[in-house]
């Protein structure tokens, strides 16, 4: 079984995890802020035109997301690993150094993004300002920093397991996955004028991170979380994790083919990519089944209410956002028309939130329980419910608005209009599209409000007087 320290005591690695969580939450705020600026530019294209262009806001919006989710995952691993292995993480000083290096690097990259924004068309621009490739815009020097930090992280996990002379199933999956995760990032670190080859390996990073290695990473973290949160036996958790790895890698690796339909790559990817990506929702259905079962067994009550609700939201969000919204456009016969429309961000918003944001929030609430009130049999507040409901409604609202806008583009611009510049303009001016952009912004504002409520709850929960309603046994 997993081992926590006596009440009120934390492993050094867990103290470090808290740093990761708070910086991740701050960057979450930055993501929302730049997303709102970009969303407003759809409504008023002259807003900050020439000063802080859409491209810069959008780049900051998606890069802040990637960095904060990674920080959240790393925090989650640093939080659970010592309990999982029953000892302090090896190389904690190195881990601290890596943390501050990463934060400094992120700070420099952001300042350059904001103040320099772009440069002349030569190699130094790609090395020091931006690489200009969606999601991995970070300049090349920062890529090396990211790989170095991932290497330290991997070292922490492996060295701790060796020192503890204990490799649990969860830790084995975690190590295997982290090697793949760090290795895949390097596939994106090269330049070629050939755009087909460029995008071929660009997708190795983007798809094989988000739809394969991140899914497994978050699966390992949730596995450790569920053992603490619900007291689910290790045997069951690990069997589910193996099943998830088998299905996620079994479908997701060749599911990569759904990005190879139209980039110049051979025709066989239409069939392979369509088939395997159509199966990608299966592991996500499996997790929903398990979540419903768990929630029922525990009658929606546990030692940590917000963590339980975010964990259930994770199962459903992953299935609906990644599974349903992904399947909606993954077959090549549909994707031929929907590719490159607002359907993609509709899926992106719902999937990243459902699969990853929810998981990190689960872990953060569990950590706060142990940090602030380990004596409480039940960790709860009133405020988290407001944040939870408002956040779920606003992410669905944004995604629904973008889905309608995307269908409009699919029909007006792609199917009827012949995909030209003029057809693009006509779709953008269609009332369905324009209403979609208005509602996306409105729900974006709701999202900001829910973020602030969430943040306030995270700062205050467990502080001050807590009313104990009823005893719920811990299962540790």
């Amino acid at each position: 079984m997993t081992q926590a320290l006596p009440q009120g005591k934390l492993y050094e690695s867990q103290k470090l995890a808290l740093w990761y969580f708070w910086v991740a939450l701050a960057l979450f705020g930055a993501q929302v802020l730049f997303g709102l600026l970009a969303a407003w530019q759809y409504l008023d294209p002259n807003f900050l035109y020439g000063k802080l262009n859409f491209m810069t806001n959008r780049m900051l919006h998606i890069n802040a997301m990637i960095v904060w989710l990674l920080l959240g995952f790393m925090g989650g691993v640093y939080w659970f690993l010592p309990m999982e292995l029953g000892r302090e993480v090896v190389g904690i000083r190195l881990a601290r150094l890596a943390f501050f290096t990463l934060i400094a690097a992120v700070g420099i990259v952001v300042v350059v993004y904001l103040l320099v924004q772009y440069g002349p068309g030569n190699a130094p621009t790609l090395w020091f300002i931006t690489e200009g490739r969606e999601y991995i815009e970070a300049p090349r020097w920062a890529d090396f920093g990211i790989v170095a930090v991932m290497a330290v992280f991997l070292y922490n996990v492996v060295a701790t397991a060796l020192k503890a002379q204990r490799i649990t199933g969860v830790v084995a999956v975690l190590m295997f996955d982290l090697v793949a995760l760090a290795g895949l990032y390097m596939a994106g670190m090269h330049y070629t004028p050939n755009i087909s080859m460029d995008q071929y390996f660009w997708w190795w990073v983007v798809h094989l991170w988000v739809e394969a290695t991140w899914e497994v990473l978050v699966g390992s973290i949730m596995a450790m979380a569920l053992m603490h949160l619900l007291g689910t036996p290790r045997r069951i958790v690990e069997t589910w994790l193996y099943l998830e790895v088998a299905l996620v890698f079994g479908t997701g690796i060749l599911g990569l083919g759904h990005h190879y339909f139209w980039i110049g790559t051979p025709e066989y990817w239409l069939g392979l990519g369509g088939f395997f990506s159509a199966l990608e929702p299966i592991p996500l259905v499996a997790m929903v089944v398990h979540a419903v079962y768990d929630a029922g067994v525990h009658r929606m009550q546990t030692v940590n209410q917000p963590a339980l609700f975010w964990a259930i939201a994770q199962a459903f969000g992953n299935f609906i956002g990644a599974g349903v919204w992904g399947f909606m456009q993954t077959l090549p016969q549909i994707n031929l028309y929907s590719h490159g429309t607002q359907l993609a961000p509709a899926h992106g918003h719902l999937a990243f939130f459902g699969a990853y944001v929810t998981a990190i929030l689960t872990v953060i609430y569990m950590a706060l329980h142990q940090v602030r009130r380990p004596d409480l049999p039940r960790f709860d507040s009133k405020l988290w419910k407001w944040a939870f409901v408002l956040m779920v409604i606003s992410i669905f609202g944004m995604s629904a608005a973008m889905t309608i806008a995307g269908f409009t583009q699919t029909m007006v611009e792609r199917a009827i209009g012949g995909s030209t510049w003029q057809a693009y303009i006509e779709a953008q001016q269609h009332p369905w599209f324009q209403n979609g952009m208005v509602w996306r912004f409105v729900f974006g504002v709701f999202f900001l409000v829910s973020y602030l409520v969430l943040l306030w709850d995270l700062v205050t929960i467990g502080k001050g007087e807590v009313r104990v309603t009823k005893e719920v046994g811990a299962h540790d």
Partner: protein
Amino acid sequence: MEIGWIETTIGALFATVVLTLWLSRGSGWLEPRFWRNAAVVSSLIMTGILVYLTIDSLNQIREGSARVPAYTVINKTIWLKRDYEKRRDIPVIGEEVGFFGKTWSEAEAFALVNKGKMTLQSRNCMDCHTLLGNGAYFAPDLTRAWLDPKWETMVKGMTGKATKEEAIAEWLQHPDRYPTFARRMPNLGLSEEEAKALVAFLKWMSAIDTNGFPDRFAGVQ
């Protein structure tokens, strides 16, 4: 027999199931050991297939292949033709017409398209536009931008340039001066050299065989 995607799919799934069952003989399907084997086997088989197909795909998308043209394609006329058997549009490369008033050698064409790609990345085009359908959605897709009718019907007149390539290069240097829509492209300070290189890149990209994306561009006949 030619091995197509269906045979590959069936083979991969079959091999995964059989190998997992064989390795797990003696354990029930609800035991951790069974699913651990399934996880390892499916990861290895799918990765193996991906590596094999990557080698094949990279060969097929090398510049100068049937799917991705040589950079000297910038010297030639390019148009799209409907393939009525496959029901999709394919790019056709025609006779030599020159580009910016000259014929570019292999080395010159490479240098120009390469500069264009660097310019594309340095100006972060992909965080407003899509390229081969990938990127952001604030501005039009650029896959077939070179073939877009608007250059002839609108931009040539606005810029007062005689040829399409000159009109595009001028427009790219001053997009703020020539609005086409409420949303204007910002002036990203492109030099003349960078603008020409970017036009070359767009022209080269328009000749890539994209399996028919986007369908019936500008109403291809």
